[in-house]
């Protein structure tokens, strides 16, 4: 999951505005405050290669031929935000053109799969209709940017010009300009990203249109993908710690279970222990026998648990739509822990068995 966010995004700074003091996911509570002039100014900052403003266009439906499906919104980018290797087919859209790029899930929404060259009719939120030509199909249906979250829903991408229609009177120029809720400031390279982040925030806070448009109880957030990764890692770490806690409790319960079964087993076989001792079994022989039994219990449990874990993991990842990874090293750890739990839990019962007095044991009914 964390792998989805890394890679070439290392030079990107994700910028949005959020209500002060909130720590939601990227874009939560974002207001459309970044004007076209702001985007141009940010583009001129040192170390910045490109700025891509992002917004969404509210839709009600998309039609292909006679086939209409409901769709709430499309993602609009002020500049092409796809690399050519992200596209399975076709090319990125051009600004100012009636063009669109779909992800595979969106292309498969219709009875006949949509392909490059087809025309779609968009029904906007207010009922107006617009015809767009499909110029590209993405390679995967995963999130294209951090604001989309995880999951593989159908997504339609459009050029901000002409489809992003949120406009304000820019305080700087006095003109009507598009105002975006978010933007990606792309630095020249991963090493420049922290400086770019600082300069972006400095610019936004001091002289930008966004500073004037920002609500009083809101602030700018500029997060590198690395920071975003850290956040995700934090959440995953917490989750992992929680699961580990549950696992440790299960281990303790399992160990007590093994110890209990072994104690019962030792009691049940008191007479057999007596027989074995009478025919020459040493304390160590008896100890070994019961320890081996406990270890076998532990290992069988660990193997069974590992198989169940593989199965549940497979179903779980299938259900959530994440890639299925088999953590072999953890399977080995599970078996080793199974042996250890077997030894620890079996030690006391086995010791009990070993010091059984054969005279009493033979008399035991």
């Amino acid at each position, binding site marked *: 999951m964390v792998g989805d966010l890394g890679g070439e995004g290392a030079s990107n700074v994700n910028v949005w505005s959020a209500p002060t003091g909130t720590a939601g996911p990227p874009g939560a509570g974002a207001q459309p405050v970044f004007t076209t002039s702001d985007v141009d100014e940010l583009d001129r900052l040192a170390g910045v290669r490109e700025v891509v403003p992002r917004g969404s266009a509210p839709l009600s439906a998309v039609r292909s031929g006679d086939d209409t499906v409901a769709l709430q919104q499309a993602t609009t980018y002020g500049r092409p935000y796809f690399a050519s290797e992200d596209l399975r087919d076709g090319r990125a859209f051009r600004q100012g053109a009636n063009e669109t790029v779909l992800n595979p899930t969106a292309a498969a929404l219709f009875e006949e799969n949509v392909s490059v060259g087809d025309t779609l009719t968009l029904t906007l939120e207010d009922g107006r209709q617009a015809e767009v030509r499909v110029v590209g199909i993405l390679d995967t249906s995963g999130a294209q940017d951090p604001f989309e979250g995880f999951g593989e829903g159908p997504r339609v991408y459009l050029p901000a010009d002409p489809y992003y229609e949120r406009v304000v009177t820019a305080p700087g120029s006095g003109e009507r300009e598009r105002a975006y809720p978010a933007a990606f400031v792309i630095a020249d390279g991963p090493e420049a990203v922290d400086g770019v982040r600082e300069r972006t925030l400095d610019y936004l806070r001091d002289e930008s249109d966004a500073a004037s448009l920002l609500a009083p109880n809101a602030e700018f957030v500029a997060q590198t993908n690395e920071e975003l990764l850290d956040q995700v890692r934090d959440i995953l770490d917490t989750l992992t710690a929680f699961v580990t806690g549950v696992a440790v409790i299960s281990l303790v319960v399992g160990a007590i279970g093994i110890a209990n079964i072994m104690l019962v087993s030792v009691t049940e076989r008191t007479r057999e222990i*007596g027989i074995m001792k009478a025919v*020459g079994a040493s304390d160590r*022989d008896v100890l070994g026998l019961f320890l081996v039994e406990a270890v076998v219990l532990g290992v069988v449990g660990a193997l069974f648990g590992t198989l169940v874990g593989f199965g549940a993991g497979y179903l779980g990842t299938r259900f959530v739509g994440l890639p299925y990874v088999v953590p072999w090293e953890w399977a080995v750890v599970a078996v080793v822990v199974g042996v250890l739990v077997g030894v620890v839990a079996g030690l006391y019962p086995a010791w009990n068995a070993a010091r059984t007095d054969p005279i009493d044991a033979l008399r035991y009914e």
Partner: protein
Amino acid sequence: MTAVPEASVESAVSLQAVRKRYDRGEPVFALDGVTLDLPRGSYTAVMGPSGSGKSTLMNLVGLLDTPTDGRVVVDGRDVATLSGADRTALRGEAVGFVFQTFNLMPRLTALDNVALPMVFAGVARANREARATALLGGVGLGDRLDHLPNELSGGQRQRVAIARALANDPTILLADEPTGNLDSKTSADVLALFDELNAEGNTVLLVTHERDVAEHAERIVHILDGRLERVEELDTVSHI
């Protein structure tokens, strides 16, 4: 302390002025100065009422217990000088137990039951299976090797137990009421088997409270209140 006679080299087991004390509120002597010599190849029966000390005598001869006083010498080795582990090892190789309730391992076949003492004695698998097969053949169970104890009759079980007792070629066969759970016909068979084994040179110590069973032995040791009451020499051919 009274002088204790030296054990004969020929003795399989020798008890010299053995006392065994239990502390049950007050000290009780289960055995109170017993001297008894079991020559190799001898056949001895022990008789006495319950509580007379028969079981304690068995446990001492069988190396399951150690005396409070006196000496127990098994196969020429003084039990008092042995560590617990050595005593266990000696028990495995020098003593063959036959119990009233057979005491076979319920989940092991006849063959595996007979092979069990050899497992603990460190005999290789092929050797112990060959010997166990031969021993079971010797007690007339050559066709019952793979049967579990619960698939065998009482008499057959006791014969498996006898074969097991012989597994490590013991110095002494200890039989504790071996016919106590058998009917008269199978009792006779089992006792005939003991006679045969004794005739082959095995030393047998048989504990019983039945006179006719005890009469299979060469001599009967009567025990009462932890002391030897009398030793009765029998005409060894009388029971035939």
